C-alpha cells in the first residue's frame, strides 16, 4: 500500500515536472528546450546506476541516520547500511535486474532469519516476526524473550555458537534466507561476514547501536519492516511509540519545580565507564524528566567516557538519582557493592538517600520498548522516593 502510494506520488511529481517544463518552454522566448529530452532526462535522473531500476521514493525516517531504504518501480527496494553497502530486495516472482555493480541481492519473502544480536530479535518482535528466527548466537539461558527461549527448547531455533566464531557448518545446514549481523564493531563479525560471502549465506548489517538518539534506535523497526514487506506495520508501531514518548515529553514539560539530577555509569576492570552527555541512554533519561549532572561530558559523543573513582565522585557528589548498569558492570549488584568499590561513594547524595537504580536482566532485549522504558524512568522521577522499589525495567538497589 505504502509502496503504491509512493509510486503514485512520484509519478504525479514526474508528470507535474513535465507539465512545468512544457509550460516553461512557452514562457521562455528564444529558449530551445526539447520537452521530450527533458522528460527523458528527468526519468534518467531517477534511474539507479547499479540496477537500472527507476527510483520512485524513499522511506521517511525521523531520527535514524544509519540506514536508508529506497523504493523502485516493480516493488524492488534497496537498503543502504551505515557502511554504504547496498542490498537489493527482489520481490517474490520478480527477476534480478542486470546488475552493473557488486550488490548484495536478497530474494523476498524472507522465511528464515539468523539473529546475531539479541537486540535484532527485539526489532523483529513488534512486527510478529519472532517465528522467522531459525538460528541465534545467544545461549538459551541468556534469552529473556519467551518466544525465542521456547523456540530453542523445542528445537525450532538453533544455537550456533558465538557470533565472532560461529559454527559455519550448522549455519550452512540450517540455510537461513538472511542473517542479521552487526558489522563494524570489531568483534570479529567482519570476518564472519567475509566467510558468509564465501559460503553464499546472505547477510545484512544492522546498526541500531550506531544511533545516538533512542528514537533513532527504535526506528530500526522500519529497517526490519522493509526486509519483511511490513513497512506499514512498522510505521504504525513506530508512530504509536513516538506518540507515547511525545506525551511523556509533554508531561515532563508541565512538571513544576527543578528537574532532578541523575548520572549513569558502570564499573569494569576497575574503570568507571560514565555515559557521555551525547549518549542515547542519557537522552532517554532526559526525555523522562531527568537532568544529566555531567552536562559537560562530551555532549556530541555517544557511548562512555572512562573515569577513575575520584573523578567520578567529584562529578556526581550531589546527584539525586544514580542509574548503575549492573548488566554491563556485573561486579556491582547492590549499594554495598558500590560503596565497596570506593568507600567515599557512601557520601554521594543519591547513595545516602538510597536512590540507586539497577537494570533488570531483560533490559537489553527490549530495544523495541523504548517508550515503555522512558515511561518507567518518568515514574522513577515523579514518584516520591520509597513508594516504588521496581518498575518493568529497573529496580531499586538494596
Amino acid at each position, binding site marked *: 500500500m505504502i509502496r503504491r502510494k509512493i509510486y503514485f506520488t512520484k509519478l504525479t511529481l514526474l508528470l507535474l515536472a513535465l507539465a512545468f517544463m512544457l509550460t516553461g518552454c512557452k514562457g521562455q522566448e528564444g529558449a530551445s528546450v526539447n520537452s521530450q529530452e527533458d522528460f527523458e532526462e528527468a526519468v534518467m535522473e531517477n534511474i539507479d546506476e547499479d540496477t537500472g531500476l527507476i527510483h520512485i521514493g524513499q522511506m521517511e525516517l525521523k531520527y535514524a541516520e544509519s540506514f536508508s531504504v529506497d523504493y523502485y518501480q516493480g516493488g524492488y527496494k534497496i537498503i543502504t547500511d551505515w557502511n554504504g553497502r547496498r542490498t537489493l530486495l527482489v520481490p517474490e516472482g520478480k527477476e534480478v535486474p542486470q546488475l552493473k555493480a557488486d550488490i548484495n541481492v536478497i530474494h523476498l519473502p524472507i522465511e528464515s532469519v539468523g539473529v546475531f544480536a539479541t537486540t535484532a530479535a527485539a526489532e523483529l518482535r513488534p512486527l510478529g516476526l519472532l517465528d522467522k528466527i531459525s538460528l541465534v548466537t545467544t545461549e538459551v539461558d541468556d534469552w529473556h524473550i519467551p518466544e525465542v527461549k521456547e523456540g530453542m527448547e523445542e528445537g525450532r531455533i538453533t544455537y550456533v555458537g*558465538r557470533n565472532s566464531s560461529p559454527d559455519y557448518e550448522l549455519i550452512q545446514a540450517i540455510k537461513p534466507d538472511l542473517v542479521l549481523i552487526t558489522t563494524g564493531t*570489531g568483534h*570479529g563479525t567482519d570476518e564472519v561476514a567475509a566467510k558468509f560471502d*564465501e559460503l553464499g549465506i546472505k547477510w545484512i548489517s544492522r546498526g541500531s547501536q550506531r544511533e545516538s538518539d533512542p528514537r533513532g534506535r527504535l526506528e530500526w523497526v522500519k529497517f526490519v519492516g522493509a526486509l519483511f514487506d511490513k513497512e506499514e506495520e512498522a510505521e504504525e508501531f513506530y508512530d504509536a511509540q513516538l506518540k507515547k514518548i511525545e506525551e511523556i515529553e509533554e508531561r515532563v514539560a508541565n512538571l513544576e519545580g527543578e528537574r532532578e539530577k541523575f548520572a549513569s555509569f558502570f564499573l569494569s576492570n576497575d574503570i568507571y565507564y560514565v555515559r557521555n552527555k551525547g549518549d542515547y541512554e542519557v537522552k532517554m533519561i532526559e526525555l523522562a524528566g531527568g537532568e544529566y549532572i555531567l552536562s559537560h561530558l562530551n555532549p556530541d559523543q555517544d557511548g*562512555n567516557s572512562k573515569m577513575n573513582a575520584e573523578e567520578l565522585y567529584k562529578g556526581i557528589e550531589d546527584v539525586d538519582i544514580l542509574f548503575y548498569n549492573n548488566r554491563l558492570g556485573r561486579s556491582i549488584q547492590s549499594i554495598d557493592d558500590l560503596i565497596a568499590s570506593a568507600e567515599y561513594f557512601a557520601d554521594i547524595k543519591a547513595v545516602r538517600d538510597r536512590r540507586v537504580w539497577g537494570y533488570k536482566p531483560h533490559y537489553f532485549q527490549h530495544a523495541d520498548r523504548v517508550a515503555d522504558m522512558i515511561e518507567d524512568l518518568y515514574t522513577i522521577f515523579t514518584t516520591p522516593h520509597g513508594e516504588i522499589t521496581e518498575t518493568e525495567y529497573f529496580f531499586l538497589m538494596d
Partner: protein
Amino acid sequence: MGKNKRAILIIAGLIIFLIFTIAINLVSGSVDFTLKDLKDILLKNRELSTLEYNILYKIRIPRIVSGLLYGGALGISGFLLQTFFRNPIVGPYVLGVSSGARFFVGIFLLTNFSLKVFQAGVLGIFIASFVGSLLAMLLVLLFAQKVNDISKLVVVGIMLGYIASAGTNLMITFAEYEKIASLTLWSMGSFSGITWDMIKFSFIIIIPTVILTFLLSKPLEGYLLGEGYARSMGINIKTFRIILIALSSMLSACVTAFAGPISFVGIAVPHLTRLMMKTSQPKVLIPGIFLLGSSFCLLADYFARAIFSPIELNISTVTSFIGAPIVIYMMVNRRKVI
C-alpha cells in the same frame, strides 16, 4: 638403529599422524561424513549435495589447509629462531613480532585513526597485523646489524616487545569499552572464518619461505656447528643471521595476520621434533617440524571446535594447554640437542 633409518621412520610416522589429523577434521563436525563417504567422494562414486559440498570445500578443507600451513609455518619459524639463538626456549614471537602486530591491530581497532589502506574492509585487520609484524622484524634486523652478541639481541627483541605492548596498553587506556573486547578476541587467535582468498595469500608467502629454508639446510647445519665452522664454509655470518630472522619473521607475520597470535606451536614443535628424531640435522628436521607443526595445529583446532561445540575455543587456549606442559618438560629435561 641408524640415524637416517630412524629419521625416515619418524617422518613416515608423522605423515601418518598428519593424515589422521586431517581425517578427523574432515569427518567430524555438525554434518558427519564417514571415511567411506570420503572415499566415495574421492573416487567420485558419490554425488555431493550443495550443503555437503559447501561444508566440505568451503568450511572444512580451507580450515584444514590453514591449520596445515600455519602450524607448519610456526614450527619452522620457531626452529629458525631456536637455531639463531641456540636456545630451545625461544619462539617466533620472542622478537616482538606478535607485540608489533598487536600494536598495529590496536591502532586499527582501538583508535579512530584511519588510513585508506586500513579501511580495506575485512582485510584491514590483516594488513595492520602484517605491517606491524614486519616493522617489528625490520627494527630487529636494524639492531642485528649493530649487536653482535646474540643474547643482547634477545634482550633487544624483548624490549621492543615491551615498548609495543606499552603502546597498545596506552591505546587501551583511552579506548572505548566495546573496542577493547575486539582486541582481546583477536589476540587469542582462531582458524574460524578462514577463506580461500586468505589461504591463497598465505600459500604464496609460506610455501616459498619454507622451501627456501629447506634449501638453506647445509648452511644451517654449518651455523649450528659454530660460527668458526660456518665461516670456514664461506658463510657470511652477519648476512646469514639476517636471513634467518627475516625468514622466521615472514612466516610468523603471515600466520599472525590471518589467524592471530598462536602460542606455543613455535616453541614446542621444533623441540619435540628434535627429541623424537634425536638429530639436529636441518634437512631432516625441517620436514619433520613442518609435519608435526601441521598435525599439532590440526589436532588443536579439532579440540577447539569439538570440545564445547558449537562454542568454539580460541586456538591458543588449546595449543597452550597442550604446549605448556611440553615446555615445562623441556625446561626440566633440557638436553643439549642443538
